[in-house]
């Protein structure tokens, strides 16, 4: 019933008293039409169906022609107007460029790569092919050698631009030898847009979500109340395995199983991408418990921040620079599992915050990855939850 009648009124509903709801909604107006909410609601129940509403059968969907022809300037404008872009100029996906991208995989261009909806099963689930991913990878400016990583990410069907009014973001941790093979940065500025591979892979994921999954469209498939600047380019984290005191993130994730699945037994050096979803990450300097001086007890600082964070939704995701990771190891935590036991009080569930959405709580979700340089004692922490891990080499 695509034409089902929807009655709109100003939200949000939660955290309002009965009296507020009565005054603002029941006695209020639809902010779009300016008419009384309840009068419109009654009309929705009683006003006869229009001819359009009585139509049955398969809806005709128009996603446009297979190709567009024009000058480069015209096509840039066209792609912008049709919201095929992230509002930045794109590399125009000519046949030659797309074919070059497709040479980087053995998979058939017409193979369905994945399916995607805007998040939480809200909205439609679209499908896209390997070729769709190649088109969007070209648009993002990615090089063909990055394409297996982009395909691995796309195969999971997780949108980079979640519909939620919370304003979520997405990320990926990449482990294995492919980091050096394609020039992923895991040194200075590792989690930022300071290398071509990190930047364009993150952008390609966003464009594939916008176009392949029809996500991120304000008015239909995106409603972040304030939004999230990390949607501009998804967070791509190549782990600094060489300077980490611990096993690679992928090996640890593989051991526990990906997103509730069976253990995958990834080996060090194996090319694996693990997807993340959440609020994003922020400098630990933001928290007053992050201390400078002789009492830099990093395990306790991490635990203090963890204890402050909401148990709702995503838990805690820590991005340690190598010197901080070494501090933690030297404090007696020679495995991430030991650190996790300490930080989470051996997995004890946090109490549900009063009045909060208790049914979203993820308990003791706590994860650590090591990346970046060793030029200072900075690190990041936030709320991101790992979901699927995927073998990249399956997409070569």
């Amino acid at each position: 019933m695509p034409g089902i009648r929807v009655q709109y009124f100003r939200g949000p509903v939660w955290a309002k008293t009965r009296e507020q709801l009565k005054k603002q909604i029941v006695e209020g107006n639809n902010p779009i039409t300016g008419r009384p909410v309840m009068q419109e609601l009654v009309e929705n129940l009683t006003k006869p169906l229009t001819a359009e509403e009585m139509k049955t059968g398969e809806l005709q969907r128009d996603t446009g022609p297979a190709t567009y022809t024009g000058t480069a300037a015209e096509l840039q404008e066209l792609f912008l107007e049709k919201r095929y872009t992230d509002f930045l100029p794109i590399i125009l996906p000519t046949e030659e460029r797309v074919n070059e991208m497709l040479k980087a995989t053995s998979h058939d261009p017409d193979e369905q790569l994945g399916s995607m909806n805007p998040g939480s099963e809200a909205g439609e689930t679209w499908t896209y092919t390997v070729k769709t991913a190649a088109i969007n990878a070209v648009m993002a400016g990615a090089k063909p050698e990055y394409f297996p990583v982009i395909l691995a990410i796309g195969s999971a069907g997780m949108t980079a631009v979640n519909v939620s009014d919370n304003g979520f973001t997405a990320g990926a941790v990449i482990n294995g030898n492919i980091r050096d093979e394609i020039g992923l940065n895991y040194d200075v500025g590792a989690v930022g847009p300071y290398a071509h591979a990190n930047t364009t892979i993150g952008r390609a994921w966003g464009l594939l979500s916008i176009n392949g999954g029809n996500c991120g469209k304000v008015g239909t498939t995106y409603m972040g109340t304030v939004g999230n600047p990390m949607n501009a380019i998804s967070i791509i984290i190549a782990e600094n395995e060489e300077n980490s005191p611990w096993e690679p993130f992928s090996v640890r994730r593989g051991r526990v199983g990906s997103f509730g699945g069976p253990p995958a037994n990834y080996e060090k050096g194996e090319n694996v991408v693990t997807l993340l979803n959440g609020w994003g990450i922020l400098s630990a300097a933001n928290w007053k418990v992050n201390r400078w001086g002789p009492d830099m007890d990093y395990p306790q600082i991490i635990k203090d921040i963890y204890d402050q964070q909401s148990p709702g939704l995503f838990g805690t995701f820590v991005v340690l620079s190598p010197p901080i990771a070494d501090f933690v190891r030297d404090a007696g935590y020679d495995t991430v599992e030991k650190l996790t036991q300490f930080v989470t009080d051996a997995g004890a569930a946090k109490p549900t915050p009063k009045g909060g959405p208790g049914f979203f709580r993820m308990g003791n979700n706590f994860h650590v990855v090591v990346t970046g340089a060793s030029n200072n004692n900075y690190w990041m922490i936030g709320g991101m939850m790992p979901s699927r891990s995927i073998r990249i080499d399956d997409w070569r």
Partner: protein
Amino acid sequence: MKLRGAVIVFLCLGLTSCLAATGSQVNAEPAVSEGKITVFNPMGTPPPIQAKQMAPRLDTLEGKTIYFVNTGYIGTDRLMDVMSDWFKANYPKTNVVIKRSSGGMTGVDKALWEEIGEKGDAAIIGLGH
């Protein structure tokens, strides 16, 4: 037996973006000297959607049974209460039934849907939030 397909209205609770305008228009100024090129459409494929016959609207609410379905998001119970109070005050001959859906915001509560089809004339479903 009442109408199998009761009239259904969804409440869009606070989703300001549902009706917001999209996109921006930019004037194209193509370079005259540029040659034309052909590029691929980057879009994926939407799912096939079969439009179902919607139930006829009610000619009156008098004597009819309207279900208010709370899908469980925070505060929707209070909203359904105050809305049903309004109906009781303004349509005293309308039978108002409030139910909680076990399907949440995106799932289906089959038993409740069957009950509404059997006993209801219309349903107002709160999607949250």
